[in-house]
Structure formats: C-alpha cells, structure tokens
C-alpha cells in the first residue's frame, strides 16, 4: 500500500508543471471549453486554493496555469503595470512553477494575465487575455438572491438591470456605473467586465483575441471568444461614455489617447496606466 502510494506520488512529482495537479488542470480546461462554447455564461468550477489568497487573482492564476504550456510567454499586469506588487508576485509564481519565458511587451506575449486593464497595445489572435475577476455576477447590485439570479440569466431577464440604469440616468443626469460596466455578450448573456475601466470596453467587442475571466473565490469562469459582439448596456439616446478628462495628457509620453491615471498634488499631473506601453511611446517621441 505504502509502496503504491509512493509510486503514484513519484509519478505525480515528475509530471507536475505549474502548481496544480493534472486532474485539476483538466477540470479547469473543461470549464474553459464550456465557457468558450457559451460566450458570457458563468461556468461553475471546483476552484482550488492557490498559493495566493482568494481575491488576489486566484481565479486568473488557475486559468493561466490550466492553459499554459512550456512554449508560452507570459505577461502579468496589475492596473496596467508590470511592476505592481501583486503582478510581480503572480508572475513569479507562474514562472517559477512552469519555467516559461516572461515579458513586459504585449506583442511578445502569448498569455496576458491582468487585473483591471487591457494593455493599450492591440492584442491579436495569438493572445489569450486572462482577467482576474473579483465579482463575476453583473446583476448583484440589483438582486442578491442567487436562485433568482440564476433564473434571470437563464431567461435573459435583464429588466431589473435596465430599470436600474434608467433610474441612474434620471437621478444623476449620467450613467454613473464606473468600472466593470455591464455588457451583453453575443446578444445573450450580460457579464461583469472584471472591473476594467469603460475605456477598455470597446476593445473587447469583436476582438481577435480570446478573453477568459476567472473568479476564484466565487468559483466561476466565463469567456469572450474571438470575434464576439460585446455591447455595453445603454440606451439609444444615451451614448456609452469612456473615461475622459479634458486637457489631460501623460506627463511622461504626452499621450492623450491612452487610459490615464492622476497623480494628485498641488501640480496635479497624469500618467499612462499601461507603464510598458508608455515607456515605448516615450521612446518613439524622442
């Protein structure tokens, strides 16, 4: 008995590539296939406990480890920054456990794992974008009961969401939904868009790359396959608005055509949130 366990254990040790055992990876891949087949549908999966805490990218990490192979090149960002502390930690875990190559340049990567941003560089068909999802349920703001939420998605009954957007517009003059803007995928399911800023939403629509959303804590995976329509929920006469501040441009590279974040202070200034893109853009300017 002990010998048999040791034997099985040895076999397991040799095969181990990327923290998760092979059975878990297979299970996650199956959930991914379902998610790709039914765009926007939240597929339940047996989310494993990872060496990072739940809420810290454990869902994204499981997706990356399930799809990664030795020839992949990984880029990991948090808020658009390759050097953000949690991005560094996740990248280190992925690279140490799989020995894949890492990069900060989006075009060199085959897998981009991200929290809260899509890189400014256009991704293409070679890329898989993996987004870490804190709250996968787009309707939670209008309904708390999970049984009712399941019914609403099953029947594509999004009336409460529409009413909520309408009330928002009437009360506030604008739709105040900030990040994670609710979008209709493939004209069927409403999804929570991680929270990426509204700036990134149009870049999901008909995108050439596969986007996978991983919510480790809530144990859900969903996907936007390549060339799938992604439509932000809004009204015919209320155009969808992305973040914009008049006159703001990056104090490093001068761009006004990237997602900017403010550095507050007496002389407030703006910088690109995508640090790698900004660096290359500065190089071009010089």
């Amino acid at each position, binding site marked *: 008995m002990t010998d*048999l366990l040791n034997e099985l254990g040895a076999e397991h040790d040799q095969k181990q590539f990327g923290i998760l055992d092979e059975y878990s990876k297979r299970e996650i891949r199956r959930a991914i296939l379902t998610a790709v087949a039914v765009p926007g549908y939240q597929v339940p999966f047996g989310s494993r*406990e990872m060496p990072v805490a*739940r809420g810290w990218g454990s869902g994204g990490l499981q997706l990356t480890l399930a799809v990664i192979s030795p020839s992949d090149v990984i880029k990991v960002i948090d808020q658009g920054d390759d050097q953000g*502390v949690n991005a*560094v930690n996740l990248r280190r875990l992925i690279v140490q456990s799989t020995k894949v190559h890492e990069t900060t340049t989006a075009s060199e990567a085959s897998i981009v794992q991200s929290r*809260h941003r899509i890189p400014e560089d256009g991704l293409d068909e070679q890329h898989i974008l993996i987004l870490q999802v804190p709250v996968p349920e787009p309707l939670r703001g209008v309904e708390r009961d999970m049984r009712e939420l399941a019914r609403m998605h099953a029947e594509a009954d999004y009336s409460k969401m529409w009413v909520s957007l309408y009330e928002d517009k009437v009360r506030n003059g*604008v739709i105040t939904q*900030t990040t994670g803007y609710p979008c209709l995928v493939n004209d069927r399911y409403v999804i929570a868009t991680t929270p990426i800023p509204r*700036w990134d939403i149009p870049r999901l629509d008909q995108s050439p790359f596969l986007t996978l959303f991983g919510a480790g804590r809530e144990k859900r995976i969903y996907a936007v396959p390549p060339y799938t329509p992604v439509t932000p929920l809004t009204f015919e006469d209320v155009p969808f608005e992305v973040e914009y501040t008049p006159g703001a441009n990056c104090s490093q590279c001068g761009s006004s055509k990237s997602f900017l*974040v403010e550095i507050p202070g007496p002389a407030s200034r703006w910088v690109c949130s995508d640090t790698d893109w900004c660096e290359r853009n500065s190089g071009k300017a010089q």
Partner: protein
Amino acid sequence: MGYSAARGGIDAIEAAEKLVRHKRLNADCEWVSPEQIVGRFRLAVDRVMGEAGIWDEQLTAVAIRQAEGDLIEAVHLLRSYKSTLPRFAYSQATDADELQIIRRIVPAFRNPPGPQMLGRTSDYTGRLLELTTEQAGQEESMLLASLALTQELDTSESPASIEETQPRRLLETLREMDLLVDRRRSDDPEPFDITRTPARPPASRSARLSSMARAETGALVNQWYRNILGPDGYVHEVTLGEVRHGYLPLRINHPLTGNAISIGNIRATEVEAIEDLNGIDEQRDRFDIGYGLCLGHNEKKAIAMANLDIACHRDNGRSQLEQSLLLTTDGLDSSGFLEHLKLPHYVTFRSMVERKLAVRDSKNRERAT
C-alpha cells in the same frame, strides 16, 4: 513608492519576504518544534485541521508556526498545499455510531442512556490566569510526567466497556418515545463534494453540512449569534442532545485487492441539537434534530453547525439563510477578499472620480438651462 506604480516591485517584495523570514526564524527565543505545537496548542491545531479539511497534526503544526499563529493563514497554507496533491482514493463512509468517545455530554436528560462523561474540558473550571512562575510550571510538568510513568495518575481518556465507549445516541431514545419527526430517507445519495463542485442554493444537505464543517469557526458562531441578538431569527429553542468528542475509524478500499482496510483514526466532534418545532406547518407535537460534525475537538463549531443545520431545514428556502451558510462562512474566501482591498485600486478609483465630476457637470448644465 515600490508599492504599485513605481519600478522595482520585485526588490520591495523580496525585502519584505526576507524581513518576515528573518524575524520568524531568528526570533530571540527558543525554537518551537511541531511536536510542541501539537502537544501544547492542540485546540488551535484541531481548529485549523477542521477549517483546512485535512487530518495531519504535524503538517498543521508546521503551518501554524509558519503563519506565526495566524490560524486562517495556516488554513490557507494547508489548503493550497492540498491543491498540489492528486487524489489517490476516496474513504468509505463511516457510520458515526462508530465514534469511540473520550467525551460525551447530554444536556437534555439528567440520566440519559450511556454515560455523561466530561473528559478533557475546562467548561467548569474557573477562568483564572495561572500566574505561577515559569519554574513552578516546569516543576509541576516534570512531577506529572513521573507520576504518569509510575501509573499513579489515571490520564487514560477512554472508558472501559463498549457500552461506554460507543453509547447509543439520545436520538434513538427520542425515537422510541415517539417524539421525533422521522426524516430518514430510504435512498443513499452520493455526498456532494464541495471541493470539486461549488455549492449554490438550493443545495443538498450534504453540501450544507460539508460547507459548515470546513467553515471558519468564528463565522459560524456569528451566524448563530445573529439569531440571538442580531436581525435573524431562524433558531427557536434548541436543546443539545449529544455533544461528543472521540475517534472515528478511517477505511479505504485497497487499490489492488479492493478489500476495505483501516488506515487509521481521526478525531471528530459530533453534536445533535433538538429543536422545539413551533411553526404552523410543522409537527408541533414532535421535535426535530440538527446535526453537526467537524474534524478535531471544536465544540463551538459543531454546536453552531447543528443549530444552523436544523434552522436551514426549517427555513426551507424562504430566506437566504442557505446562501449565507454556503457562501459567507469560508475563512479563506472572506479574509482573502477583505485583505484584497489593500491591493492597488487606482484604475477603478480614477474611473469613479471621473463619474463624480460627470455627475457634477450634468447638474451644472441643468442649472444653467
């Protein structure tokens, strides 16, 4: 800088790691062995094993030491370690009647069938901080060790006879008195595996019970106490029928012969809670029973679990109690998500600021017209 937008994230992280490791390994005091932690902090070890869903005292002691005593962190270390291991086998279902008690109390009767056995409990001991000197404590420890060697001190925990080690449970007696709602079912459904399939309401009872068995102890106690002073009122008038702590055999089928073999014992706490039914649609001339069982010696958890099990059954989907139990009691889920608020959120915050200004602009435009 170093926290987020700045360069050099890796240096900052490595420095923080080095500091933690250095302070932990190089603390200015004696080294603590896993044996000491198991021997001296058994309730912490038991609690962590229950919440991690793993039975291994040594490994748990190592986790508690590495986590510097943060028990939820220790649970995290153990559970993520478990994720790296494939499953070799499934244990056979063990009948809880096989529990060999080392402690059993029945609050519902003065003289129940079988023993009332206090065992290792400090329930009836005054909570006085022992302010003896370290030297006196060590001398007493050595004296007790020598007495135990010469067997002048009875420290065996198990009673002698089989009637006493595996007493009939009070539930049987209540059944004979025809005082119980009969909820026994004739089929034998496979238990729901919460580690492989996320449990969502409506869920099977096994899904609810296993979620609670792995739940964070404090979270379950709080869910119960919300019924006493908080906004919830699911628990009516519960009397405990059984509170047991003891050993359960663990058997698997041998992978070659297929025969059942015992591979050891685990300790568990088991509780039965008798609920006084008072609902208009309930059998008000009978009682019903809630069940709690968790790894190790953790009576607070098992009692809360048994109370909430019957509460959830009686609620029958009317409220969101089941959702609360299934989804809000896991220690890793709640503390992980709470702590994630420390991560940079400046992209989302920038988007929020932009909307605040947009609302203001809209109001100003309204006023101007």
